[in-house]
Structures are given as C-alpha cells and as structure tokens.
C-alpha cells in the first residue's frame, strides 16, 4: 500500500500516517471485570482479510479516522471519520452548528 485516503486531506503516502490499531469498543470501566478488560487490552482479531482500524494523519491534518483495509492485499475499501465525530457533525447540523463551538462566541 502506498496511498491511504484521509477523509480530510485525500490520498497521501502511507508514511504520513500512524497506524493506531483495530477498531474496538472499550468496556465501561465501572461495569467491567478484569478478564473482559484484559481481553480488550490484549486480544486482537488479526484477520487475514478485511479489517476495520484506526489511523492517525501524523504529518497532515493530525486527525484520527477509520479505514477498512484488506490485510493481505492492503487494498482500502472505505475511509471515514470516527463514530464520535460523525455524531458531533450530526448534532451540529441538527442545532445549526452551535454544539461544537463552545468557545464563548470566538471564531477562528
């Protein structure tokens, strides 16, 4: 794989990015047990095929994003923002764009 599509910057050389890891859901620290927590920390699906993972655009927009990649061919199928940011975007649209801007009215 030479090019990785960043949802903000478009296709860039893979050397600009940092691989973060397989997309996983962190268990609720107040409700989990040691076994579940350690499985979250250490166990990986590590498939030979399509996998969903997080990358970080280190030398570009410095944003995290989510990629669907084939681990044998390194082909990339989709690239999108993380779920939390997608939710923020939807909230922004629903409230007219005031949710994310909590900086006291300053504009940048």
């Amino acid at each position, binding site marked *: *794989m030479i090019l990785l599509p960043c949802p903000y910057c478009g296709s860039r050389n*893979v*050397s600009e990015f*940092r*691989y973060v*890891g*397989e997309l996983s859901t962190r268990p609720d620290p107040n409700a989990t047990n*040691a*076994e579940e927590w*350690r*499985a979250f*920390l*250490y*166990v*990986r*699906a*590590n*498939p*030979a095929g399509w*996998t969903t*993972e997080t990358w970080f655009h280190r030398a570009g927009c410095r944003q995290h994003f989510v990629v669907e990649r084939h*681990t*044998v*061919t*390194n082909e990339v199928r989709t690239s999108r923002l993380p779920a939390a940011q997608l939710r923020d975007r939807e909230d922004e649209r629903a409230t007219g764009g005031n949710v994310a801007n909590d900086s006291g009215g300053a504009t940048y």
Partner: protein
Amino acid sequence: MRMFNNRNGSENGHRANGYRKPARYSALDLVRHGLSGSDWPRAWHAHDLRPSYDVVIVGGGVHGLATAYYLAREHGITSVAVLDKGYIGSGGSGRNTAIIRSNYLTPEGVRFYDRSVKLYETLSADLNFNAMFAQRGHLTLAHNDSSLRTMHWRAEVNKLEGIDSEVIGPDEIKWLVPYMDTSESVRYPILGALYHPPGGIIRHDAVVWGYARGADALGVHIHQNTEVTGIDVAGGRVRGVKTSRGDIATPIVVNCTAGWSTLISDMAGVKMPISTFPLQAAVTEPVRPFLDPVIVSGTLHVYVSQTDRGELVFGASVDPFTSYSMRGSLEFTEGLAGHVLELMPSLARMRVLRQWAGLCDMTPDFSPIMGTTPVAGFLIDVGWGTYGFKAGPVSGETMAELIATGKTPELIAPFGLDRFAKGDLMGEKGAAAVGH
C-alpha cells in the same frame, strides 16, 4: 539439479516412497559421491497421510520440526505428522536473518534463550548435518544515554545468569569492527555497545533440513503442501484436523506457525493477543570477509551481518502497520541504506541483490506464547515476533517435553497464554526489539 531428479523422487511430493534410513554423512562419503557423481539419498521422504497420528504439528519450520525431532528422540513418540501448507522452512525459518544470541533482558528470557544457544552449539554434531554456526560475537550499539542504561541493565542480568555479556566502549568497538564510524561527528554517535561473544549467525536452511532429516530418520512423517483447513474440537478437546489432503484423527495438535498463528488458533476457537506485521530484510552482493561480529542498532532500526559467502544481510524493525502481505517497499530499502551508511560509510558503492519480507506475530510484551490452551490437546508455540528462529531448538525440546509428560517445563512456564488474563506480562521489549 541432479539431487532432485533421482529415482525415488515424486512429482507432487506426496507419493509414498520406500523408507530407507539415511546413511551418516561423512568426509569419506563426500569424496565417494564427488568422484562417482552418484545421487545422494533423500534426506527426508514423502508419505501418504495416515488416518490418525498421536501428535499433529502444524507448521514445518524450525519449531515444528524440532518439536517432532525431540518427541521422537527424547520421548520415543514417533507417530507424529508435521504439516506445512508450502515446503518446509518456507515461512519465518527461511526468512529470518539467522542471528543467534541469548543476551535478553528478563532472567526468564535469558535462561530460555541460553538453553537454545547451548543446543545450537552442538546441533551440527547431534544432527550429523552441518548448520555452520559461527559464534563471531554480537554487538548491540547504544547511541544515547537511555539505551546505554538498558545495555548496562541487560549486561548485569546476563552476568547473573552466567552469560558472557558486557558493555564496551567505542575504542573496543572500533577494534572489533574497523570499518565502523565511531567518530562523534555523526548524527547518532556511538556511545558504547553490549558485547555478547557467544552470539553469531547460522545457516537457517540447514537447521530446518537437519531437523527434518533427523525427525524423518526416527519415523516422523513430514507432509509438505498439506494445508490445515480446520481443527475438530468436541467437548472441549481436540479430536482431529482437516487438511487439503484429507482428515486426520489426533488427540494433540500443536500450533507451531508464525504469521498464521492467529488463523490456526481461530480454527480451535482460541483467541490470541497477537498482531501480524511484516519485517523486511535485504542482502547485498558478496564481498571479501571484513565484518566479523553481528551489528545491531536499535536507534537506527537496523542489523547487519556478513554471511560465509560474503553477502551482507540487513534486517530492520517490523513495518509500521499490520499486514499479511510479504511485499517489500522502496521506503524500507531507502531507510535501510541510509542507516547502514551511517554506521559504515565505506559501503556506499555496494549493491543490494534482493529484498524480502517475513511475517512476525507480535505479542504485547515481546515474549512468545507457549504451552496449553483452554482447549484440551491444543498446544501453542507461537507469538515469535522477531525472535523465533534463535529459539527453535529450545522450543522443540520444551514443547516435546510438555507433550510427552503433560507437564509444562519450568523453562517455558512464564510464557503461558494465561499470563495475559492474569496481567502477568513478560516485558522483553528492551532486548527483543529493534526500535519498535
């Protein structure tokens, strides 16, 4: 090509041959065959798949073949099948950079790898197969205070365990490797090194072939081009394996794969704390011998040694993202060349002959995962990251003992799969990794 053309040969590698115990190799034999031009006997044989075996080993690399060899030799268990989806030694055993050493960081790791070095020292004689182990010494360079501190730490742990290992300064490095740039006018000046005289390099294919020949002579069946497609588990016990050539009933399956260890364990329903990364290596054209010890630099992410043929073998750290692809990349070669030239600028005119990649099963603590699993009869010898080849003999010896006695040998007790559930990790990153 004559050797591969003899009358016992089979087109597909599966045809059963009449079994013959191989003659011992000797200097006299060499002269006799050299003068007569006659064929050498096959070092190992193809067999039909039996419907059942006492032990099935998945993976025909150094770990799988050594396990089979010690099972037969030390414990008299000869109903053993070694399955490989390609040819033996086609995975990590034929792709590593053939470095042997035991100067690790944890006392458990040092004891374990030291046993391997001891076995390697007598391996050629034990197997009657020249593995060309050259104990030329091993230098791990330190370019900053923190790595020098780790070198001192490792040296003290090593000495406590009785390993020949010490920190030396730039003058001594220069004496050992006259071509090394030990000046202070470079980007990462060399402050010192961990010197490990028993370390060295070996011919990795010969180790695989020697174990295969030894195991075959004791009655082990080596099945090449035989891919495992499933593992039968019923009532929490292993019942057999499905392969591309038919089913085998067996009470014990040993996962001795590297790269594919997660996929094989998945077949038995055992979850693994493993991520698979490619590691790239390269070799130059041969030149006259000039480099005696093995050189490793964690800061520059590179290790260099010169083979008996005179080629320089370069290895690097693992690629920065997981993949099962074994393709090389230009970025790797560029980075590697730059780092090698920082150490030895006089190599600037040398040409790279070829590059390749192998798969490394990285664990969270840079230690292997060995022993039993929640599935009875399913044993693992995996998670070998970037340090599997040097552990081949000791892994075979200890896994064979575990299979034969049902008890986990003390030497591998710290490397169990349950350490991740208990949070009892064996941090070996400071000595097992090159910059990752």
